[in-house]
């Protein structure tokens, strides 16, 4: 193995990146591709976020003020799709590209040209998806879960473009997943056994397997839709002997592991950051790894908890209820381990730590509401209300997104060679924290009081909480422009960062200079 790496080294070590656009268009360097993923993801985050602003503006007061219901539905759909496939997933792939080779002492990703391809598919896919907004009949309007037959028989003509966009995103994700697995399994530095890998690498290894397992299922379900729309089949058309509920089973077989795809890498990143700022090794490393494995396995047998109201047989309801409740056990283990890591540490609270601690607290709150939703009889009252909206925003915003922010601040010095502005970063944190809670906490109350999700207008008793929620959302949204400013400022200059800017951090990535040179670990390091 090392022989191969050596030849690679002599070929490339003497030259740096190509000049101009060619550097990015033909990029095969994991750091460049990682950067492109992160920039793309943040662009999508702002685009999806501005759609959320449209949604929250319309919901600021009862009555229809800003948009028509049809466009409102297009906004909720596109917001969901862009945030899931455009913002969160590419951000984690970007982090994986940057950090996995640095963490395992590899010179690059195992399949660099495929890496280029899997990134460059994404802008094309999202250009296609966003272009549907300008098409006759409008963009997809059936929610990011695109239940048939609303999305087939009753869908707008742009549904076909949506299907192809999903296909392209799926191909990109599968290639990304293969690349991560190939890199981790083949390119680890000598001495780095699996159980010595940083947890971020572990969680990404498991995430990559989830990706490979479920993205083809998503491709399958959209292909069945395509057949129903254009080729006269009736997979999901009851009138032709098909089954609309089949759609939901196939979709959620993809969809539930998908939510873990969006959270497991954040678990990994937080498991790096908490020990670094607690100046104490991660508590229960082995049980952390097993917990992630258990969560991933269980994620394949809980999909129908999204479908408790479709009229499954009671035995099915019970099976999915029990399995779903079980997920609380490994998830609890992770939370306990993080808290035990902090316990009797020597804590400091720089921006990455602030985001990581907020991650633990708020993700746990999202976990609690998840546990409540798992109780099938109670789910009959919660299902498809704002309680669910509150729940998944609590696991995705302070979960996935705070995990990404924590990672970004943690590794920005390594990426740019400069320290970011700590005061601004803390401002970013506190404003995000307040805005996020103000936006999403009242949604619990709204859902319990009876407000269904995905409605453009609501009854008067929901007015006050909606207004508070909208104000929080505007605060959270505006704050993200501050993040953009902080990152740009950090890229352009600032205090010089040492190789290891955080005294409690551990891992191979801190052994290379900051900024990390274009080629690192041309000779693999020795791990003891």
């Amino acid at each position: 193995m090392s022989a191969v790496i050596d030849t690679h080294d002599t070929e490339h070590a003497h030259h740096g990146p190509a000049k101009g656009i060619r550097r990015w268009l033909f990029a095969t360097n994991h750091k460049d591709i990682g950067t492109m993923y992160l920039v793309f993801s943040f662009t999508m985050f702002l685009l999806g976020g501005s759609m959320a602003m449209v949604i929250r503006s319309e919901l600021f007061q009862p009555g229809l003020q800003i948009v028509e219901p049809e466009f409102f539905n297009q906004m909720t759909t596109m917001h969901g799709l862009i945030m899931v496939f455009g913002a969160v997933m590419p951000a984690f792939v970007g982090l994986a590209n940057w950090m996995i080779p640095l963490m395992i002492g590899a010179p690059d990703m195992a399949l660099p040209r495929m890496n280029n391809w899997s990134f460059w598919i994404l802008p094309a896919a999202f250009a296609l998806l966003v272009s549907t907004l300008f098409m006759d009949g409008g963009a997809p309007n059936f929610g990011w879960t695109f239940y048939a037959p609303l999305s087939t028989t009753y869908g707008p003509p742009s549904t076909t473009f949506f299907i192809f966009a999903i296909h392209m995103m799926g191909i990109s994700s599968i290639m990304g997943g293969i690349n991560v697995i190939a890199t981790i399994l083949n390119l680890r530095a000598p001495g780095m056994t699996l159980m010595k890998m940083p947890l971020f690498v572990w969680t990404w290894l498991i995430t990559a397997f989830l990706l490979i397992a479920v993205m083809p299922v998503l491709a399958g379900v959209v292909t069945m839709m395509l057949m129903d729309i254009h080729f006269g089949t009736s997979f999901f058309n009851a009138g032709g002997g098909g089954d609309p509920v089949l759609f939901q089973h196939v979709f959620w077989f993809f969809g539930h592991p998908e939510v873990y795809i969006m959270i497991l890498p954040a678990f990994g990143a937080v498991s790096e950051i908490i020990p670094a700022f607690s100046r104490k090794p991660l508590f229960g490393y082995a049980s952390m790894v097993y917990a992630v494995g258990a969560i991933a396995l269980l994620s394949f047998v809980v999909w129908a908890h999204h479908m408790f109201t479709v009229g499954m047989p009671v035995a099915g309801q019970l099976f999915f209820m029990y399995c779903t409740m079980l997920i609380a056990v490994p998830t609890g283990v992770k939370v306990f381990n993080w808290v035990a890591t902090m316990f009797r540490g020597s804590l400091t609270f720089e921006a990455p730590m602030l985001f990581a601690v907020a991650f633990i607290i708020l993700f746990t709150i999202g976990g609690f509401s998840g546990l409540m939703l798992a109780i099938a009889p109670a789910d009959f009252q919660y299902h498809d209300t704002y309680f669910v909206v509150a729940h998944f925003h609590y696991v995705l915003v302070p979960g996935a997104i705070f995990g990404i922010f924590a990672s970004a601040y943690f590794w920005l010095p390594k990426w740019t060679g400069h320290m970011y502005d700590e005061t601004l970063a803390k401002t970013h944190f506190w404003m995000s924290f307040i805005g996020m809670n103000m936006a999403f906490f009242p949604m619990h109350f709204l859902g319990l009081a009876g407000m269904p999700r995905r409605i453009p207008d609501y009854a008067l008793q929901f007015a006050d909480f909606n207004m508070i929620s909208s104000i929080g959302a505007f605060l959270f949204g505006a704050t993200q422009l501050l993040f953009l400013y902080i990152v740009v400022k950090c890229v352009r200059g600032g205090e010089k960062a040492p190789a290891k800017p955080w005294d409690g951090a551990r891992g191979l990535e801190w052994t290379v200079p900051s900024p990390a040179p274009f080629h690192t670990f041309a000779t693999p390091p020795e791990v003891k």
Partner: protein
Amino acid sequence: MRMTALRVGTLLAGLPVCQSVFADWTVNMTPGVTSVSRDIYGLHMTIFWVCVVIGIVVFGVMFWSIFAHRRSKGYKPANFHEHTWVEILWTIIPFLILVVMAIPATATLLRMYDTKEADIDVKITGYQWKWHYDFLNEKFGYFSNLATPQEEIHNLANKNEHYLLQVDEPLVLPVGKKIRFLVTSSDVIHSWWVPALGVKKDAIPGYINETWAKIDEPGIYRGQCTELCGTNHGFMPIVVKAVPEDEYQGWVQDQVAQAEKLRELTSKDWTKDELIARGEKAYNTTCAACHQPDGSGAPPTFPALKGSPVATGPMEKHLHTVVFGVQGTAMQAFGKQLSEVDLAAIITYERNAWGNNTGDMVTPKQVLDFKQSQQ
């Protein structure tokens, strides 16, 4: 107390909370008026308090660390990183809590699924965007549409107390009887939810889902469609009016008599103007959501009727389109949804409104003949 604090906080922050609107600060699930809804409420509160207690313990330890174990206070880090006993313990204890939680949840679920021995069967059919209620034992049925005026939705008039939660014809049910709901849909998936009854069931084309309720107290209970079902998903409320048994029986007799009257209307001799007048009303409740009140539609999914080849062409084609729908499009078959009178009125209206001056008409009897000739 907490809500008072929140309200004060809101006022202090100077938020423009509009007091004229009928807002309140409901923060919790309704216990409802059925035994099932009360069981659900009980489960909800139990699991909520379980979460609160776990949260206090976990966050308590965490906040203690954040407070006490700071480098700024000179705290030196310990170096422990595993403890087998603790780890086993905090795997087993949550598991046991979950087992204890699962027992009552299972019992409630089994009860919710027991639809046997119902006194009354009501078939609920979801349509874009209204509900149809069929009283199977008494053989009558009717649509229930949103009754909130468009002016209120578009902020041209003050919103009334039951804004968006009011219908023209509520579902009337007796208290103290076990009512079985058979829930289905004629187009996309809807979901029938009345929080106070503890009932939410998806209405799925091709499926008939069963659920039930036994209402304890008379009253008016409001709910909404809870599955995204297209443009007007937010505008198909549900109103259940629970009344004492004798009042219910009186209402049933009225409904049966009305159904009889409708059958008589079919055989009546209608003039074109009568049909157009009735048709305009029926069109606005049934067709306007898609084809718009001015017949302009929302192309390409919902074509315009104004000047359309169907509404101005041969009568046969027009009848066929309305009665049998158009396969593979959003146009439903209205033949079974509407009475012959309304079908005739709507078609006549469409052929004579918005400059579609065909001048012809179709009578309820002709519609009936057409339907029979096609079978």
